[in-house]
């Protein structure tokens, strides 16, 4: 339980906590095909978003993730109708469609044919699983400023983090630039050929982007970005070498871990070794950095609590997978069931909606209430 006092004052939680929570929920969703469990996870994510999102621009994007998830489900079902129709012989046929014969080369693929209940359901469940994962990621994006998360990276990765942040903020500008140039086309007319049209848009946009990045680079440099600090060239060389070795080991390790035919020795051991070297590289790089961080977001009890609630859902789902496999991966010929304890397990993920500090509303200049809840309270008073 989060402690009372400073930690529970209205404030925005550290973005990392929301990401851990959301990714754990997504992991839980990925283990199951039970539609009720998936819907429950979506509901939990939506509830927490509704309770804990701020008024910031990125916090308004949740519904787009929901739309996207719905599209995914629909597409998935449509594809099952189109391609995987009638995969199960002893199944209830819902709709008889003529099967389109395909040449021998495309054997194994069926186009149309009988639409069975099982194929529709399997498409639906599968789509719902993917959609739930999307909604979980969307919840993280809505609750935590993704750029802030990038800023919390260890000092050694600071440069990379800043680059990504800047690239992200350039995207809307690029879109604006394209729009402007396209509008300007009307004023000038286009060449007759398609290539000329392309050039008509691409050239000014690229020039614009290039100029912007040069200005930005100059501006950042003038403001001290990349000050060398106290590191000697030798120290820099050592750090660079460590980073490279760590990357190499990690890549080999992941390959070894995922490829079942690879010798076991290059799997886990390389991963562990790689992680160790990476840690070494980061401390080496971190030590020479003289940069500091303005108002760093600290992990207090609510952060731990939020992250833990998400992880708990994932862990309990894993347990359920072993205990009641029929509920976690339900059969396609019967109504899926979900034991009560599984429902409760998923509901653990909703606790942050109640037990974390409320987001800090940006105070309005005249001190009047700004959030709907505050307004309602002021009206009632």
């Amino acid at each position, binding site marked *: 339980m989060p402690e009372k006092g400073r930690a529970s004052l209205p404030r925005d939680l550290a973005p990392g906590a929301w990401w851990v929570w959301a990714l754990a929920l997504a992991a839980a969703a990925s283990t199951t095909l039970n539609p009720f469990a998936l819907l429950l996870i979506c509901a939990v994510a939506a509830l927490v978003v509704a309770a804990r999102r701020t008024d910031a621009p990125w916090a308004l994007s949740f519904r787009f993730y929901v739309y996207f998830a719905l599209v995914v489900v629909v597409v998935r079902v449509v594809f099952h109708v189109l391609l995987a129709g009638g995969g199960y012989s002893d199944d209830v046929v819902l709709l008889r469609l003529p099967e389109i014969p395909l040449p021998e080369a495309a054997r194994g693929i069926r186009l149309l044919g009988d639409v069975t209940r099982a194929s529709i359901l399997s498409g639906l469940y599968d789509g719902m699983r993917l959609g739930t994962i999307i909604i979980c990621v969307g919840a993280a994006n809505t609750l935590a400023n993704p750029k802030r998360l990038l800023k919390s990276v260890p000092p050694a990765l600071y440069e990379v983090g800043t680059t990504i942040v800047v690239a992200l903020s350039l995207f809307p500008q690029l879109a604006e630039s394209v729009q*402007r140039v396209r509008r300007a086309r009307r004023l*000038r007319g286009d060449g007759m050929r398609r290539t000329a049209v392309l050039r008509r848009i691409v050239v000014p946009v690229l020039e614009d982007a290039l100029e912007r990045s*040069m*200005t930005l680079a*100059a501006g950042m440099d003038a403001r*001290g970005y990349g*000050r060398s*600090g106290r590191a000697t060239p030798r120290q820099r060389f050592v750090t660079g070498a460590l980073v490279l070795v760590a990357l190499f080991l990690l890549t080999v390790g992941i390959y070894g871990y995922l490829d079942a035919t690879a010798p076991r020795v290059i799997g886990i051991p390389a991963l562990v070794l790689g992680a160790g070297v990476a840690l070494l590289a980061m401390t080496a790089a971190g030590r020479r950095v*003289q940069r500091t961080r*303005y108002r760093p977001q600290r992990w207090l009890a609510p952060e731990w609590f939020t992250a833990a609630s998400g992880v708990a859902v994932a862990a309990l789902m894993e347990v359920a997978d072993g205990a009641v496999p029929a509920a976690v991966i339900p059969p396609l010929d019967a109504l899926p069931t979900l034991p009560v304890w599984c429902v409760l397990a998923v509901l653990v993920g909703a606790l942050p909606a109640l037990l974390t500090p409320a987001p800090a509303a940006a105070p309005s200049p005249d001190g009047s209430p700004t959030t709907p809840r505050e307004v309602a309270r002021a009206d009632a008073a």
Partner: protein
Amino acid sequence: MLTLRDVSFAYGDDVVLSHVDLQLDDAELVLVCGRTGSGKSTLLRMFNSLVPHFTGGTLAGDVLVDGVSVVGTPPRELAHLVGYVAQDPLSGFVSDTVEEELAYGMEQLGLDPQTMRRRVEETLDLLGIAELRHRSLLSLSGGQQQRVAIGAVLTMHPRVLVLDEPTSALDPTAAEEVLATIARLVHDLGLLVVVAEHRMERVVPFADKVVAVADGQVTSGPPAEVLAGSVVAPPIVELGRLAGWSPLPLSVREARRRRSEVVDRLGEPSPPLLPEGADVLVARGVSVLHGTTPAVRDVDLTLVAGRVTGLMGRNGAGKSSLLWALQGGVRRRSGSVAVDGVDPAAARPEKARELVGLVPQTAADLLFLETVDDECAAADRQANVAAGTCRDHLDRLAPGVPGDRHPRDLSEGQRLALVVAVVVTSAPRVVALDEPTRGLDYPAKEALTAILRTLAAEGRAIVVSSHDVEFVAGVADEVVVMAEGEIVSRGPAARVLTESPAFAPQVTKVLGPPWLTVAQVEAALPAAALPDGGSR
């Protein structure tokens, strides 16, 4: 504080500055002036090594900041000494919110969190932006963005603040805000502030020293002395020269005190003539929506052949949206637009271009070929006119633009002339220009004025939106003022511009209505009253 010793700078054989000596001290507001492309920006960027680190080129001589040579030191190692604010604040922002942006520089310097917190609070108060602290940088107005950009370098406590055209994109009121802030920094903090600015009339009254850059040479001294011989000078200085005042007045206040010396000699002003002509464009009840925000609300506008209409109003008042709606490039929510009875929005683009030619705010968007000649040839083909038409227009508007030059290598004024020529090649009945004076110096603005007068004399209707009061006073017959998407005032320029202090040009402030421009005064002065060399 800042010293240049025998500094020369060149790109290859192209000499920008030669043998410059300059000494700037603490607690001074220094105005750097000169024509476009004279090397003002180069000079400014030398102070923190952006030149030559970011631009290339060869630098000879010595640049000293606080007595230490900075030649060869990268800009980032000078961040704590010299704060540099570029022209467009938005393009230099690194983070999303005001507070983070203010802290960014300090994070790079590695200051401890306590100090950072304190300085952010101090700076928020100093610049009067405390209520904006959590706001997204994109949601701020131009003036606010500029103040945040200044704050973002101030938190590093630099000894020198360098500003490259801080008010060029701002409306008069926002520009005042920023300039007041700058003046306060000089007076209260004792900073050395170096400002380059084209619209000098705003900065000159505050300046302690003026540095004029011309032909690679630099002259510096008290404002009145330097401006007496400068090619680029604000209207008030021109007026002072015309009247033969010495020392030259730099502020409206100084000039106003000697007003009677001129006013008594002036004959009757020529009564403002509103050129009469046929109605070319008739817009009724035009509204434009941006998302759910109305950008233009129920606007009626009539443009008359042979008349130049100035469109004024603060940033975001709906000027651009209105111009685009007239051209048909932005969809109207309601209302009608008719150019000689045809709606440009309903016409095909080729036809619409013959009705309304629009020069957008970023004029360079219209250019995409490698040479001026290619652009002209393409314009002729697209407009289906005889080859060479566009080039003729260009030569009339800005003689001597080299045909083999890349459009990006032209000066701002030349590039604008090229875009105007391209637009006019379609022989539009109405020519609309959106904020064309950005980055133009006084002579270039005069040239643009001449261009617009020529186009109007050919029987076209001209509409030009601008923040630049002096430019509008010189070019417009009629002025329309917009606020929040509505027209709040319209009428002959002489009446609208003299009515409100915010839009009154300097000459009006000194001599009172109906005088608008120095040229008018010059025409009304009896020839004998002109002192030698006082004419322009």
